[in-house]
């Protein structure tokens, strides 16, 4: 562990099964830490059970923005260890780490003990029992808060706020339990304390990636959503449902994903910027509909929050393996956009940008997020208000000879909205002529294909196609995408502290290819590391198919749910350097 990360960040895991309430403890700790001026990131790992399975809240707190999970956890505390062996590999510990366990809570998973971490026994259940209705999750909240040096005041505030609904007695009980935890921590040497930012009163946001995607969509002008629930995308839809009507929009719960994609096509045809959100299995079902949006040039946005695949796969855990279907899943030649967010915060930007792209080009945009960032809660600085708004080329005064699919230089044709006299046309998945009438003529097929391709190929994506960072003359470049970006970014920062410069190219636009921008970003690169969370290397193959990568290329990849950690990036580059 590099020394510099310790005094800035602390990583901790709260473990418990069967409604032990560790997610509540985690959320409260995150919010209290935010109140105290810290940044943080909370991810979760849960089993497949609806209720009662193994679960852990994984937090990283620090005095600067936290974007990824660290290599090791400083503290792991368990209300019980039931089923914990199923995710213990996701919580790596070091010799300096601390395992806090209730002696009555069962055996600590072998893989955790093997780390050599110090074990401290804490009678969590017994402490909770000293308080009437006292709950163990509140005891560990106080205990952990004390260990990392968080004062009681912000915790008290959060408890009062969160438990207000349950009445004063409930809040008082919880507060007593928290205090018991604080007291019990007095004699325990903590492996790590956070350093606080002094007198920091800046406004911060606490937001999950799925909420961020919903918010970006709404800010970008989405006013119609069709929804079918699916893990881990449901929160996008649940956030939008109550918020859309505030802006004059609405959400329809559809009977299946086939309905959702087709409903948003209908609503968009009617003139409302429209979106749906889903995950792999749902995306598979939507493919035919997305093709219809492409052929009929009806703007739609599909947010796809990736989970482990194939088939039902691992619904609750993250993977970057819907890239292939997003790019290649449509039958026929069907030019469309595939964009991907690079962090919780970037879900706002990339979703809003996706709305802009769909509307400007009258096409389908698949926005890829993933379970890791979608269901992670992050403390962020309030994001900039970006200018992208849904802006469609609409013809409001058509003449009698209006041609909906007129062949234009940009490839984008003005569309009329229902209600506009003389603008009537029939949108169609059949190939059509400029008027929109079905056609099997070679010339019409060629002209319309050229047009649909041109509008996407020649669009100006500006600098948004990727985040390009680092010294321009560094020979090392890391290419990555999605939520893996921030682990890579932190790895590159650590390398820089050690005098090793590495460039980062984190791609936000996965399709179409932008070779000119790519070449410029990789100019002078001699060693390229491609990092992704995919067993087969979907991203690597996409790059190989579309771009010339100069120099030697290596792939660092693995399947989910194990995330890629910054320390691994550091090791990869250092080992390669000495070869």
């Amino acid at each position, binding site marked *: 562990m590099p020394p510099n990360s310790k005094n800035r960040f602390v990583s901790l895991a709260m473990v418990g099964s069967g409604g032990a309430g560790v997610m509540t403890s985690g959320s409260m700790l995150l919010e209290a830490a935010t109140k105290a001026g810290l940044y943080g990131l909370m991810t979760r790992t849960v089993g497949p059970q609806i209720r009662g399975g193994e679960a852990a809240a994984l937090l990283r707190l620090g005095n600067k923005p936290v974007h990824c999970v660290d290599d090791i956890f400083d503290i792991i505390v368990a209300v019980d260890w039931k089923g914990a062996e199923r995710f213990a590999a996701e919580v790596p510990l070091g010799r300096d780490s601390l395992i806090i366990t209730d002696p009555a809570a069962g055996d600590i998973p072998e893989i955790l003990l093997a780390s050599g971490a110090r074990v401290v026994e804490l009678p969590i259940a017994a402490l909770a029992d000293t308080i009437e209705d006292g709950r163990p999750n509140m005891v560990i909240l106080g205990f952990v808060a004390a260990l990392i040096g968080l004062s009681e005041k912000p915790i008290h505030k959060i408890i009062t706020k969160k438990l207000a609904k349950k009445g004063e007695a409930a809040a008082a009980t919880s507060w007593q339990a928290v205090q018991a935890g604080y007291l019990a921590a007095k004699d325990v040497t903590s492996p790590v304390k956070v350093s606080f930012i002094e007198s920091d009163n800046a406004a911060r946001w606490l*937001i999950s990636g799925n909420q961020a995607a919903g918010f970006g969509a709404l800010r970008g002008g989405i006013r119609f959503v069709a929804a079918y629930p699916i893990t881990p995308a449901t929160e996008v839809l649940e956030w939008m449902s109550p918020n859309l009507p505030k*802006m004059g929009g609405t959400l329809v719960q559809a009977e299946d994903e086939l309905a959702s994609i087709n409903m*948003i096509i209908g609503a968009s045809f009617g003139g409302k910027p429209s979106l749906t959100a889903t995950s792999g299995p749902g995306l598979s079902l939507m493919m035919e509909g997305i093709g219809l949006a492409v052929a009929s040039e009806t703007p739609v946005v599909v947010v796809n929050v990736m989970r482990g695949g194939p088939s039902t796969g691992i619904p609750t855990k993250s993977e970057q393996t819907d890239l292939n279907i997003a790019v290649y899943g449509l039958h026929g030649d069907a030019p469309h956009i595939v964009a991907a967010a690079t962090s919780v915060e970037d879900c706002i930007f990339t979703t809003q940008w996706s709305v802009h792209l769909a509307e400007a080009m009258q096409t389908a945009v698949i926005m890829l997020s993933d379970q890791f960032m979608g269901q992670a809660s992050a403390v962020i600085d309030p994001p900039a208000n970006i200018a992208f708004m849904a802006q469609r080329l609409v013809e409001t005064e058509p003449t009698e000879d209006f041609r909906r699919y007129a062949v234009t230089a940009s490839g984008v044709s003005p569309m009329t909205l229902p209600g506009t006299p003389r603008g009537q046309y029939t949108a169609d998945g059949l190939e059509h002529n400029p008027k929109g009438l079905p056609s099997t003529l070679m010339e019409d097929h060629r002209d319309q294909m050229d047009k649909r391709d041109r509008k996407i190929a020649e669009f100006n994506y500006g600098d948004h196609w990727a985040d390009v960072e680092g010294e321009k003359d560094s020979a090392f470049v890391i290419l990555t995408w999605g939520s893996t970006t921030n682990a890579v970014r932190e790895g590159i920062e650590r390398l820089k502290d050690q005098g090793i410069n590495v460039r980062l190219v984190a791609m936000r636009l996965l399709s179409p290819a932008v070779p000119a921008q790519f070449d410029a970003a990789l100019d002078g690169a001699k060693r390229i590391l491609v990092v992704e969370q995919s067993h087969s290397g979907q991203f690597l193959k996409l790059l190989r198919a579309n771009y010339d990568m100069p120099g030697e290329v290596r792939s660092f990849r693995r399947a989910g749910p194990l995330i890629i950690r910054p320390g691994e990036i550091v090791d990869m580059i250092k080992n390669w350097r000495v070869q």
Partner: protein
Amino acid sequence: MNECAPPKLKASDYKSDLKPVWCSGCGDYHVLLSVTQALAKLKLAPENVAVISGIGCSSRIPAYTNTYGFHTIHGRGLAVATGVKVARPDLTVIAAGGDGDGFSIGGNHFLHACRRNANMTYIVMDNEVYGMTKGQPSPTTDPSWDSALSPGGTGLSPFHPLVIALASGANFIARTFSGDVRGTASIIADAIEHPGFSFIQILSPCVTFRPDQKAWKKRVHKAVVDETDDPARAARRLMSDDGFNTGVLYRGHRKPYGFSCGAEKGDIAEIQKQFEV
């Protein structure tokens, strides 16, 4: 937006210039005529009407009208139509298609469109056959009907769309015969005006793959009893009728789907406050 529409449009003004792909003698020509007559009767401006379909012979109908239209993909016409109606409650939305499109591949949307009860009209031109793919049995085909795909017949009981519509919550259920153009036009107009989801099964013969259906014009007959708003009575009648009983067979009072897009309003700055800590 209506100021440009002439004060009175004839049925032919709702037709486009496009020549249908249908066979000579196909019942769907008559359905097209009935739809245009209904629109003329209701004096709807063509630009305020959207005709949405799936895939199949009858699903070609949108481009043959002079309204806004969407010829979507197989089985999904109702879903697209629902999106149009919820986004644009000001429009008159007519979904149309065939028996294969609506009851087989699109069966789930049929159930839930009835249940959702959005204010729109669904016309199914039922010829008990997949015509566009040249003669395969559909959900409404007789179990013994012989075909290359199912030699000797499917052996499956036919789907009963009107009963299913009633059980699923459709608010207006009617059956007509395509050859009765004026009667069909009148029922389509009635369905459009009735709030909620209106379903019309139009028996529309396929002269090419089901020449036996030429006999339909002799078999159809007007329902001998008055229409009902009692679902129990309607169910009994629909379960026991011979499939050629025409007219409005059920007219309900369920409240239509209540959510739709409205005028732009609100302030995103207010909404984002929920994220502030």
